[in-house]
């Protein structure tokens, strides 16, 4: 409960953009030379460490080193190049195959050749929503660790709206299902926000608890009331066609309108945070809640609203998967988006554009990793390891500076500055 005595480091990115500056310009201004260099080096170092893990866990490498040092090196290189080659081809597609497909006139082959890169966009979409949710929390001084639970509840709400309402035209049904998803997430974010504002209960613990409550709740719903009657698996009924996010191509391409919705929402979050009075209050409370209080801002309202909005964004992440990809709700539909979102919000400096870029990176890695598992036999979980490394280096830029002999910047860029459990 003590007042935080440590000097609160000020992020250079907290500068208030002046009127008339564009989206890109503000973002570019936020990037001092190192603040773009460090994320890039963090990603690079993460990939290098990933390569080391791949080498250390490949049997051929040990066989090679038993043979001779050269053979060992060759086997190591082989392991790395096979793995990363598979990663990048299955994430972005193979250029030669694309060219060959375009020259031929087999429409299915063209779709197949271009599918990997579109599939990466499909994988990035929930990351954008989830990353925006965490970023909005960070900007408002809240650590929303509950994105995973909020996206589950959002998915439940939207799936229910998707299959229970029938006979509506798309123009009504789809927005309704999207709104239902946002409402579910917002509700799950509202509770810890309200508890924080009213009782001082720390949102980190409460959102962790809410995550598990959400898992149990969805488990019960999918095994009971929301279970598809003709199925043995915990799966909800399929949503109505009128609630589906429109897709643009035929099979196997799953790319759908959710991606554009995510970009639109990212822009809206940017506009809200940096161009409106409300957004200004959010950011002021996030930067210094005491100053905000003295300036007459209502901390209670901002805290509750920020958590609810963050939850609504998280809810959209789950909604997107239900209405755009799976067309139903299954128990294990989330690949830990909520937790990876913390990493990518930090990587994107909690700026909507940064979040979009980081989400594209994570989505690409995630979708490439599936191919890597199939062709190179590297378990998909290596991606989580990479993400942990990247997050670690972003959180502790001093490590990267030491590794690459970078100079300490004049203004120390703060990561998130944490408040203790007890801080009201």
């Amino acid at each position: 409960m003590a007042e935080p005595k440590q000097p609160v480091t000020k992020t250079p990115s907290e500068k208030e953009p002046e009127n008339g500056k564009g989206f890109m310009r503000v973002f570019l201004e936020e990037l001092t030379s190192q603040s773009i260099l460090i994320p890039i080096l963090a990603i690079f170092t993460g990939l290098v460490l990933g390569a080391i893990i791949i080498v250390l866990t490949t049997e051929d490498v040990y066989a090679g080193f038993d043979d001779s040092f050269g053979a060992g090196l060759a086997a190591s290189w082989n392991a790395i190049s096979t793995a990363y080659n598979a990663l990048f081809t299955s994430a972005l597609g193979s250029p030669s195959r694309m060219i060959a497909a375009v020259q031929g006139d087999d429409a299915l082959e063209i779709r197949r050749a271009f599918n990997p890169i579109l599939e990466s966009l499909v994988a990035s979409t929930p990351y954008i929503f989830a990353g925006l949710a965490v970023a909005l929390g960070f900007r408002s001084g809240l650590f929303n660790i509950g994105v995973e639970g909020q996206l589950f509840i959002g998915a439940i709400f939207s799936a229910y709206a998707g299959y229970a309402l029938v006979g509506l035209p798309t123009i009504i049904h789809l927005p309704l299902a999207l709104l239902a998803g946002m409402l579910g997430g917002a509700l799950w974010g509202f509770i810890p926000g309200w508890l924080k504002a009213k009782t001082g209960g720390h949102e980190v613990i409460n959102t962790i608890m809410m995550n598990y409550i959400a898992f149990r709740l969805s488990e019960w719903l999918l095994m009971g009331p929301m279970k598809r009657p003709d199925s043995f698996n915990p799966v909800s009924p399929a949503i109505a066609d009128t609630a589906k996010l429109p897709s643009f191509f035929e099979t196997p391409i799953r790319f759908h309108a959710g991606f554009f919705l995510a970009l639109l929402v990212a822009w809206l979050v940017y506009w809200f945070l940096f161009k409106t009075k409300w957004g200004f209050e959010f950011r002021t409370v996030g930067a210094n809640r005491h100053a905000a209080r003295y300036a007459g801002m209502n901390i209670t309202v901002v805290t509750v609203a920020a958590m609810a909005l963050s939850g609504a964004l998280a809810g959209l992440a789950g909604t997107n998967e239900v209405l755009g990809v799976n067309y139903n709700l299954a128990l294990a539909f989330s690949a830990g988006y909520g937790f990876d979102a913390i990493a990518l919000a930090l990587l994107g400096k909690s700026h909507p554009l940064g979040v979009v870029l980081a989400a594209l990176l994570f989505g690409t890695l995630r979708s490439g990793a599936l191919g890597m598992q199939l062709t190179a036999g590297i378990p998909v979980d290596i991606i989580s390891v990479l993400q942990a490394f990247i997050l670690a280096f972003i959180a502790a830029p001093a490590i990267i500076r030491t590794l690459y002999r970078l100079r300490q910047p004049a203004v120390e860029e703060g990561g998130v500055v944490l408040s203790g459990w007890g801080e009201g």
Partner: protein
Amino acid sequence: MATATANMISEQTYVSPTRQRVIGLVFLGFAAAIWVLFGRETEPGLITTFGLAVGAQAASVDPLTLPSLATINILALASAFVGAGQLARGFGRRTNWMLALVTGFFIFSFLTWAAADKSLNLVGLLNTSLSRAVPITLGAMSGILCERAGVVNIAIEGMMLFGAMSGTLVASVTDSLWLGVLAAVLTGLLLAWVHAVFSIKYMVDQIVSGTVINIFSVGMTSYISAKFLQRYQELNSPGTFRAFPIPVLGDIPIVGPILFNNNMFVYAMFFFLFLLHFALYYTRWGLRLRSVGEHPRAADTLGINVFRTRYMAVMLGGMMAGFGGAFFSLGSVGRFDEVMTAGRGFIGLAAMIFGNWNPFGAFGAGLLFGFADSLQSRLAILGIPIPSQFLLMVPYIATMVVLAGVVGRGEMPAADGQPYVKE
């Protein structure tokens, strides 16, 4: 903030009239719930049988048979009586004990109702509860060590998971369970060292640092499991520690089978529980550790090395978590499964908060959560139409209620989560 601090200090000595009334109403609510939920649902004349023995003792210890309806009504009356007493003059410092008592009445009447006209083995239930409480309590003690020194540790889950895996791997390769335990402890130590360097040296947000370790642990253990453990079964068959009865004590009726016929982890948990309690509250070491968590600047002024103390606390906490992780693989199922800790580390965190950052409080919370866990698996057998998921939610909801200060606010270490900058 100042008023909140004042409240916290005053709550130690006296209970405010409002809180006294609120808790009195809670007791009455419990009484009404017992009567409405269980009493009215139980037909008169039914008998509830509680088994009190397992194995060889079954011949000598008779089961407890109770008339269901009468028992429930008596418990409801008793709860109402306690509630009336609380409203009339209050129990002062014993309020929390009364709360525990009434909660106990509620649980017992629930069991009486659930097993009406049937039989429920109480000793078996409590024994399972105890073993389910082991990893939760060890995780909570890991958290207590870290947070009492002012470092928030949400990476308990990751440390446990990694400990479970490395314990399995080493025990399978060396064919020695004890080496497996050692490996698990060292893994916890290593991850905790990372957490310490990040949060103490680099002053990374401790939640971010913990998240890094959690993501890394889930990724790395699943990677190794998919790449090796699932393909080579000989790497994933460490065996388990067997339960062994303690001579004499194990023969005591009722208590013996519950407490003194367990495997190594249960006895070790009790040992660490007493050790940590003693060390924290009765040694100079503990006083220093707690002072660093309450007011690092003052501790520093008195010549305590804040950084070294925090490093030590976090690393000891990591060892505790790693040991707890070994329970999952070596103390329970005898193999490693992906994400097998299934959030137990986070329940440990919850138990720590619920238990007010005290070892014995955390153990009590661990027992309660372990009880909810073991009860849900038995309700299905008794044919009780309560979805098991709702019982599994109890720990999380209970923690949120405690955190909200509905039944008294916890006294967390004052400098918890705040990096220390030496001037």
